[in-house]
């Protein structure tokens, strides 16, 4: 599974993406696994209310299932437009 990070999530973790093997059933389970990778990840995921998640490039929820998902992305609320 590819896990992508954007904006300050990417900066806190220090890499734009990880490719991982995981049995995580939900996004929340995946976040627990990522937190165990080290303090950069704990810092990035310290408050998930400040984060958004996309599954296969569609906005989703933290309790969503990862079944069949190939790409997960974590990022802060979006700030496009003018």
């Amino acid at each position, binding site marked *: 599974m590819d896990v992508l990070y954007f904006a300050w999530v990417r900066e806190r973790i220090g890499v734009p993406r990880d490719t991982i093997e995981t049995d995580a059933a939900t996004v929340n389970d995946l976040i627990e696994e990522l937190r165990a990778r080290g303090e950069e990840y704990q810092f990035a995921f310290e408050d998930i209310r400040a984060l958004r998640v*996309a599954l296969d490039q569609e906005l989703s929820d933290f309790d969503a299932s990862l079944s069949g998902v190939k790409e997960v992305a974590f990022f*802060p609320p979006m700030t*496009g437009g003018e």
Partner: protein
Amino acid sequence: MTVRVQEETFDPGLELNSFTQSVQGAGAVVSFTGVVRDVEGKLAEMLIEHYPGMTEKAISKIVDEAKTRWSLAGALVIHRYGQLGAGDQIMMVATASRHRVDAFQAAEFLMDYLKSRAPFWKKERTASGDSWVEARDEDEDALSRW
């Protein structure tokens, strides 16, 4: 319907003219151009990051939604990413319809959704350091009126 996500700048006047010429049967064309605001004269540059792949899909979905709500003869969305300076254009929306209400409302709808549903993140660089622009509650609230 045209969606462009690009690093290079664009000429809003030229884009508007070619959009206007391309739409059939429209009596109203509305356009909006977003420009990089200077932060009290201190902004050195703005960096816009996006999520290649998702960005185009998310914007197309927003445009499709606008088409179901209003009668549109055409819609154009251009959004830049990369390094921008104060006064540079960030993005542009244009809509065309038979009568003006549809074009105005669809353009506002597109702007509200682009702001909080298209995966872009802005970072301001000033002499005192870099900071990510934070989403505001009003941006999310703006969606509820639609």
